[in-house]
Structures are given as structure tokens and as C-alpha cells.
């Protein structure tokens, strides 16, 4: 916890030095405006729900627009926005081309809101007093989850972790049993680094796991790992920090052993070329300072809006989330969006139209 706080402070300092205090564009949405809808509904991802809840309660207090967000899961969010039963959807995984084509209200935009990291955690009694955390490479992680490495003293693991040489025990693999964005990020990473994984299992909110026990929710996985000796699992970073689980180091694509600090998570977005639609999986970033297992979480909105009042409220809300909102991320153990991702997100936001004209109000749209 302290370490994270220190790192966060450092990130804040660095950010302050480069961009001077808050993100430029903050403080422009301070009160309600006439012609703005007073209620918005959204549904989707559970992973960012804590941050969204905080955002929307702050926003209601300051701007007077009530946002009703239902954390029903990314799949449900995609379904709800595709069927146009909500004003915005939310998802931890990017929509597929098929899903985009099936959306009833036209073209959907992916606007990133924050970033999350997924971390491997484990329970090896022999190492409970050891300060040295385990180290995993892309190879060893994928082999464990494929069932190719089945013992903790496998030579491949011992090569990076000499302390495992005497742990002659079977590995108990734990994964999420429910579909989740956490699994999406984890399996996307394994797909990116392992050809065998990509070919046989693939990436998704829920997949057919080759081995292991399923725990329900982050708490289920953490609970399983905590009480099952010789287990390995993966959880959201915030969860590992709050539960003081041992968090392993992972070698990133540049060959550096990384800890999942907030800085390392934000760096991941700097190592990949962000496409203009921001529909990108950020796993296995080439940035040498990046934690390799991270992803955006998005809010999904239609580019062509029909209701001027809702369009105005929605674009102002998203502007506030992308700028003022980022300051809340660190406290709640999310990684704030890097500046260039915000810039690209703003371009997308500016492209939202209502009845043919720009939905974002001029004072925001003209902000440089």
C-alpha cells in the first residue's frame, strides 16, 4: 500500500512537472447548463464501477445531472447499448467487428475512461517469509495456464526463481469462473505472448480454461489462492493491494522485470501505437517501463445521437470524466489515462453529432 502511494505520489509529481497541475481541460464543466438532460442511464463493466460510482455522485452534486449506472458486466453493457436501452454502455474488452455491426443505433465509439492492471498472485507456504517475490515470464505464465508446467519446481520456473527448486508440488491453477474484463485482459495477454494459447484457447471474457479451478469474482479467486496451498491466480491490481496478496514480477516484452506500479500501468499505453478509434488491447506493451498485463476500460456511445438534451449532457459528462475525473482514479487504485490517450479520446468525443451538428458544446469543442 505504502509503495503504491509513494509511486502514485511520484507519478503525480512527474505529471505535475510536465502538464502543470490538473489535466488541461479540467474545470470547464462546473455547473449545469440549460437544455441539458438531467438524467442519464448507463450499464456495463463491473471493474470500473467503483470509480464510476464516485464520479457520478460527484457529478450529480456539482452539475446536477443524475447518472444511473448499472454494473451488470461488460457483456450486458454491450448488449444494452446495442439494443439502445441505455444512453451509454461500458466494457472492459473492445467490441468485436461483428458486435459493432450488430449495434442498432449506428456507429459506436469506444471512449477510454481509465486503465486497469491484472497481476499474478500465488500461495506457496515455503516462501511465505521470503521477501523475494516470484518472477514469471510470458513463457512460464502461459505454460502454467495451458497445463504444460504442472509443478512448482519445473526447471523453467526454477531458472528465474531458484527458491522454487525444492518445492516439489503440483500447481493449483485458479481462474475466474464468471465472465469478466479481468479475464479478458489476462487471456489477451496470454494470446499475445503464446501462439499455442492464441490458437487453442483465445482471448475473451470467459474462455474454455485448459486447467484449473474457477473462483467467482476477484474475491473468489483471491479466496481460493489465499486458502489453497501451491495455488496461482490472477486478480485486478487494486484487489491484490487491498488484500496484501503477494504479487509476482513479470518480465515485459523489453525484457525488464516489472512490478505493477501505477506508473508502469500508465506507461503501457505509451508503448503501443494507439489507433484513432482507441479500440486496442494494450497487453504486452513494448515500452521498457510498462507492466505488460493492462487494458483500457471504455464507455460506449453512439456517434450519431438523436436527443439533443441527452447528447449535450452525455458529451459534457464524458468531457468531465476524461479531464476532471482522472484526478479521482489514483485514490481508488486505478491508473489514470496517459495524456495522449486523453487527446485521442477528445477527438472521438468531438466527432459525436446530434441531428448533424456537433454535440459537444462550443466552449469545450474549441478548447485547445
Amino acid at each position, binding site marked *: 500500500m505504502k509503495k503504491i502511494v509513494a509511486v502514485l505520489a511520484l507519478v503525480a509529481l512527474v505529471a505535475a512537472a510536465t502538464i502543470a497541475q490538473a489535466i488541461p481541460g479540467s474545470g470547464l464543466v462546473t455547473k449545469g447548463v440549460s437544455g441539458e438532460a438531467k438524467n442519464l442511464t448507463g450499464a456495463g463493466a463491473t471493474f470500473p464501477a467503483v470509480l464510476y460510482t464516485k464520479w457520478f455522485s460527484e457529478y450529480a452534486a456539482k452539475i446536477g445531472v443524475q447518472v444511473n449506472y448499472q454494473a451488470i458486466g461488460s457483456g450486458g453493457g454491450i448488449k444494452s447499448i446495442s439494443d439502445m436501452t441505455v444512453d451509454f454502455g461500458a466494457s472492459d474488452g473492445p467490441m468485436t467487428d461483428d458486435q459493432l455491426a450488430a449495434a442498432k443505433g449506428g456507429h459506436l465509439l469506444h471512449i477510454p475512461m481509465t486503465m486497469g492492471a491484472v497481476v499474478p498472485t500465488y500461495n506457496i507456504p515455503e516462501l511465505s517469509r521470503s521477501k523475494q517475490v516470484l518472477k514469471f515470464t510470458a513463457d512460464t505464465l502461459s505454460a502454467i495456464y495451458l497445463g504444460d508446467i504442472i509443478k512448482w519446481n519445473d526447471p523453467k520456473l526454477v531458472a528465474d526463481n531458484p527458491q522454487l527448486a525444492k518445492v516439489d508440488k503440483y500447481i493449483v491453477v485458479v481462474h475466474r*469462473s*464468471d465472465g469478466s474484463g479481468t479475464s479478458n485482459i489476462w487471456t489477451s495477454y496470454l494470446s499475445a505472448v503464446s501462439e499455442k494459447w492464441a490458437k487453442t484457447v483465445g482471448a475473451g471474457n470467459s474462455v*474454455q480454461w*485448459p486447467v484449473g479451478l474457477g*473462483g*467467482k469474482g476477484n474475491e473468489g479467486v483471491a*479466496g481460493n489462492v489465499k486458502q489453497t496451498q501451491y495455488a496461482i491466480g490472477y486478480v485486478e491490481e487494486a484487489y491484490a493491494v487491498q488484500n496484501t496478496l503477494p504479487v509476482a514480477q513479470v518480465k515485459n516484452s523489453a525484457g525488464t522485470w516489472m512490478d505493477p506500479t501505477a506508473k508502469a500501468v500508465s506507461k503501457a499505453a505509451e508503448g503501443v501505437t494507439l489507433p484513432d478509434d482507441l479500440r486496442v488491447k494494450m497487453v504486452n506493451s513494448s515500452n521498457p517501463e510498462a507492466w505488460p498485463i493492462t487494458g483500457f476500460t471504455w464507455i460506449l456511445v453512439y456517434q450519431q445521437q438523436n436527443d439533443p438534451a441527452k447528447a449535450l449532457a452525455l458529451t459534457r459528462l464524458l468531457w468531465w470524466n476524461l479531464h476532471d475525473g482522472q484526478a479521482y482514479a489514483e485514490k481508488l487504485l486505478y491508473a489514470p489515462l496517459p495524456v495522449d490517450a486523453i487527446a485521442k479520446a477528445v477527438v472521438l468525443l468531438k466527432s459525436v453529432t446530434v441531428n448533424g451538428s456537433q454535440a459537444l458544446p462550443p466552449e469545450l469543442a474549441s478548447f485547445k
Partner: protein
Amino acid sequence: MSRIIMLRQGATKAADPSDRRFAAFVATMSAVVILLVVGFIILLAVDSWPSIRKFGGHFLTGSVWNPVETEVNKVNFGALPFIYGTIVTSIVALILATPLALGSAIFVSEYAPSWLGRPVAFIIELLVAIPSVAYGIWGLFVLVPFMRGTIEPFLQNVLGHIPVLSALVAGPPFGQDLLTGGVVLAIMILPTILSLSREIIAQVPRLQKEGMLALGATKWEVLSQAVLPYAKGGIIGAAMLGLARAIGETMAVTMVIGNSSQKITGSLFTPGYTIASAIANQFTEADTQMYFSAIVELGLVLLLVASVFNVTSRLLVSRIMARKEGANA
């Protein structure tokens, strides 16, 4: 049957307006209930149609559940591991819960003095009020380590050398498996079976018991010759109601069963999956149409499994009742 018809005709003859209004009212109520059920089934069938059309009977017999298309593995939905897990955990629960419930019911109603019997029955029936997620959390943090560390190694020691039974306890004990799922279910259905059995035993006419006692029968003889034969059908019905609850139970099982559909083995120590927990786990994130459709079809299959159990139990009860009536006549 004929009596009912007579009664109905009587009601029409009376033709009292308020009576007719009430008849219409209750008829509407029951029509609403029936419509709800029918609508529910239609909705399930419509939503699961893409999956039914694509996979057909394979859905019931296949054991690969792969929602993600890759080069080697196509999207494929076969629910057999879920069906198997549902049936096995329910039967384990029934086998464990019925003797316990019946034993306590007999003790409470026939043996215990009322100052003891009433509180005991009350406490056991209180178990009904515990939400299932609480059972799940207790199961995960208390029962699972206990099963893994104590019960399962013990069972392996005892049964491991007996030819057929050893297959039931093969494999490393994880604690999260079909057996633990069954144990949690047993605890959950125990109060249902217990309270119904108690009611049924209490319904046994005093005359029967007193007649036996007058003939000089012991307490055990009264129980085994007068009480239990009379209550048999009802007790089986109670057990079947418990079974119905076990089949549909979701949260508690999900948290302890291991949620793994890799393979079906004979061992109770294999991590498994039930239909209800598969739905609970995967419904919210079923993000393609076929996946969603397959999950809905799981709901339909669950309904089917429950109906099969229900019909079987009704047949069983009516068979037993018929035999008894035949014996009495």
C-alpha cells in the same frame, strides 16, 4: 373427481353474483400464474432458438463448452458436464440430507419431550432463512478447507482400497469439488425435508399409534409398523421437494464446486459445474448472440432436468401410495 364436478355444478346453480365475481377473480389469478409460466418457457425457447438450431442434440451430449473462436477450437456449446454436475451434486445432497432430516424429524416429533423438540425443530428450520450466498461464503472459507484437509483425505484412506468405491474418491483432494457442492446443498435442503417430514409424521392418526400400543407394541414397533408406513409417501415427497431446491440452487454451489467443466470423471473429488452456476457465472458477460443463446438454452435444460425429477418423484409417490392402499384393502 366426480365430487369436484358436483361441487362446480353446485356453484353455478347458486349463481350468486358475489360468488361468481370471486370465482372470476381466482380464475384470473390462476390464469396469470399459468400465463407467466407459459410466457417464461416461450421466452426461453425463443432466445435459445439459435443455439438449439445450431447444436441440436449435441447440446445435451457434448462436453466442450468453448465460447471463444480460435484457429483450432471452434465455438462449441455442449452442456453435458453441467447436467452431470447438477445431477451428481443433487443426489449427493439427497443421500446426505434425507437420513439426517428424517432422523431429526422422528426424534423431534416422537421421542423428544416438547421442551426440547420444539426449540430443536425451530433452530433447524431457521436454516431456511439463511441467504444462500451466506452458505457459499461459509462453504468457501470453512467447509472447503475442512473437506480438503480432513474429510477427503479420510475418505481416501477408508475407501481408497475398496475396488469400486475407490473410483469415487480418486484424484487430489482440492476441497472444491462435486462432493463439497453436495454437502453444502445437503445442509441447505435439510430444513425443507425436516419440517415437511415432521408435519407428515404429526399427521399420522393417533388411533393407529394407540392401536399398536394397545397390542403391546414397543415404541420402535409403533414407529416402524404404524407411523413410517403411513407417512412414507409424504416423506418421499418431502425429499423430492428438497431435491428440487438442490437442482436450482445457485450461489452457494457456485462458490464451492470449483467451476470447471474440463472432464467428467467418476470421482466426487473432481471440480465440477452445475447448470445453475454456469448460468450465474456466464450470463452477464455472454457477449455474442450464440453464447447468450446457449446460456438461455441452459435455463431451458435446467427446467427440463427439474421436470424430469419432479415427474419421477410424483410417479414414485403415487406408486407407493397405490401399493399401500392396495395392501390396506
